[in-house]
């Protein structure tokens, strides 16, 4: 039982850590499925984190913070869209630019506004998302196995966590059951086919890029307004890139994406707990190995040694009619 509770603790933490990844991963999924490669997830999340933290701080309302976070990420998404869709610029370059801009601007403004080395003061009370206890969490706790699981892992998270979890099936439905999803999947494979079918390729891709922005916004806001209760320079610390890895891992499929992110979250939770701990017999664990694991796994998958990850055919290529 003791062990079981410990395990639940790890799961709980894995879930928390997986949420930003899941948001970014789904974000990337919309964009790349529509044929727009986005390595600027990191930057969009960071910008969202900053905007949400500062706004929540100013208004004292977490919701206002979330709104600001979404807005900030959408802005950068529009920049990416303009560069990649309207101007047919290089999508990688644009992503790199957005990451640099976000990293620089957030730290700069944070430094100027709060001079605490780019940090914002800690968010308190209403400025943070409170943890929501799901109905019956305590009463069901008595139920063997499932009870504690429900109470510990499922219940007791702030709103953004549940939003992110809902976003997964929602994405699946949008992608595979709606007209918009059909068109998104098509335009990522063969934009000319979509064009000749009488659909405006540009507008379609913009819509996907904006969806990407929204989810990045959610992820970033969650980190600042809920997880860390404040903004820190570069607080996303590469999550946007792990999300890309997860996306490849999931082969651009929504449900698999959740799985991949949970796996990576679990690795992270494990790594955190094992840091500096001397395990009897083994000695201290080289935590860096665990931290590098997601990246190593992704490379192995990309190399096609296990399975094969084939991106949408038209992703990365701007749509040009005239050859």
């Amino acid at each position, binding site marked *: 039982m003791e062990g079981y509770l410990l395990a639940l603790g790890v799961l709980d933490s894995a879930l928390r850590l997986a949420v930003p990844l899941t948001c970014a991963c789904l974000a990337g999924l919309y964009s790349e499925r529509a044929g727009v490669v986005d390595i600027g997830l990191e930057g969009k999340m960071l910008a969202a984190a900053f905007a949400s933290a500062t706004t929540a701080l100013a208004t004292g309302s977490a919701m206002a913070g979330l709104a600001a976070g979404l807005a900030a990420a959408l802005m950068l998404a529009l920049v990416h869209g303009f560069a990649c869709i309207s101007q047919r610029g290089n999508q990688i370059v644009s992503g790199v630019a957005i990451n640099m801009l976000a990293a620089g601007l957030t730290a700069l403004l944070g430094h100027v506004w709060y001079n605490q080395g780019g940090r914002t003061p800690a968010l308190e009370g209403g400025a943070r998302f409170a943890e929501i206890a799901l109905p019956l969490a305590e009463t069901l706790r008595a139920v063997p196995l499932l009870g504690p699981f429900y109470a510990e892992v499922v219940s007791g998270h702030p709103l953004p966590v549940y939003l992110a979890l809902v976003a997964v099936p929602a994405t699946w439905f949008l992608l595979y*059951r709606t*007209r918009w*999803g059909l068109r998104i999947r098509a335009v990522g*494979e063969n934009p000319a*086919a979509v*064009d*000749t*079918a*009488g659909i405006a390729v540009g507008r379609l891709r913009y819509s996907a890029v904006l969806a990407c922005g929204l989810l990045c916004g959610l992820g970033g806001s969650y980190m600042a307004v809920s997880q860390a209760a404040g903004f820190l320079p570069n607080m996303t610390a590469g999550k946007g890139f792990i999300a890309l890895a997860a996306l490849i891992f999931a082969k651009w499929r929504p449900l698999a994406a959740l799985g991949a992110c949970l796996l990576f979250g679990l690795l992270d939770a494990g790594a955190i707990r094992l840091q500096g701990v001397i395990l009897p017999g083994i000695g201290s664990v080289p935590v860096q190995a665990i931290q590098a694991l997601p990246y190593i796994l992704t490379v192995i998958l990309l190399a096609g040694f296990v399975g094969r990850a084939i991106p949408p*055919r038209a992703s990365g290529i701007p749509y040009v009619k005239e050859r």
Partner: protein
Amino acid sequence: MDAPAIELIGIDKRFGAVHANRAVSLAVRAGTIHGVIGENGAGKSTLMSILFGFYEADSGEIRVHGRPARILNPADAIAAGIGMVHQHFMLVAPMRVAENVMLGAEGGALTAGGLARARAEIARFGREYGLLVDPDAIVGELSVGLQQRVEIIKALYRGAEILILDEPTGVLTPAETEQLFRVLDELRRQGRTILLITHKLREIMAITDTVSVMRRGEMVAHLETRATNPRALAELMVGRAIQPPMRDIPAAEGRPLLEVENLTVTDARGIPRVRNVSFSIRAGEILGIAGVSGNGQSELVEAIAGMMPRASGAIRIAGRAVPEAADAARIRAMGLAHVPEDRHRMGLVTAFPAYESAMLGRQDAPRYRAGPFVDLAAAIADTAGKMARFDVRPPDPLLKTANFSGGNQQKIVLAREIETDPDVLIVAQPTRGVDIGAIAFIHRRILDLKAAGKAILLVSVELDELFALADRILVMCGGALVGTRRREETDQNEIGLMMAGLDNAGAEAVP
């Protein structure tokens, strides 16, 4: 008599400096099949893409059933009842047939309803026009013929009254072509209007009611099919009387310089493209290869030139066996020269200055070489010389390759390959997208090489060209040799039939 279904008036379109359509006009009666013919690059696809709203004309007017129509994008065209089957299919490979068919006409925010309707309609088209295809098949896994059906169904599903097909038969087997024509005939009987683009006179005669001829971006003739004949059309197409084959140089009977034995080539996906082909070419001989494009000619050439691995078989150049592993550079060194079928795709580097294109494939040749470096002075001087001898205009070795005209680009390639004094020359589609002046020049050069005792393999989709140059013509269909004929013992009809795979009697006429 009522207004034509389609009327194009003074359509003009440029791509950069390329004038693809020059004040083109065209009218098509409702309920008829209208053919449009023209050489490669004549501007047929461009014109149709404009009619379909895929490209926007620089100037000109479009009328549908007499009413002026503003067709700025495919949506407008579809709304106007125009559907198009493109030369290069517009399908989403990893999606199902039904999804492809409904794309853009889903009828509702959710796909469920649309899918059901698409399935039903696909079934109906199957019954009514013989357009049979499994709605749940993954498009990417269908044969080319079936994919084309999906394209036609797409158009019909959107209620197209006017159907444009751009070179639909180029990629089809004879059987598939027959089926296609049956479908078209059925559509015509139901009152639909069809625009059929093709190179193949046989098909024009077979199915069209009226025909228009394009040449170098201009519309040069409108005719009732009944009132014309292939020869007349051909002359209109190329804009000259087809010269009688030049008989000046008799086929010399030198030693075999290129020998190919039981060559089989499979593509990346393991599908055989060339099946057990054998032939040999003697010094001073031109061997022509005829065939509908996509029947293995390209793969045959690439395998001989070392750009594609061979699955089995042997190749000898001037009696020396070509090792399996030899790459293009190695084989060149053995005395082979190769004018590729698509100069833009592989023959040149359009972004580089001409002199760098003019040394492509010869980059390691001693004369361009200065230790690990390129001998710039030599390369430029050498190119200038070539340009002078081949009358390339403008004769500027430093000009960006892209800024030479199609014909001049082709001359650069030709000069590069011919001037290495090879034993064997492979020339593929040497005059595609090249104007008449350049064609004559290029043909003369090829005959000069023959006179010089080289072995020449000439691949062309233009029968005229083959009959003008080749001593023997060898026909490929479905990757296999279906027959060989001496030029003087055959005619375009017989070869055409063999290309269609309809006749392979006496395939071994010549050993």
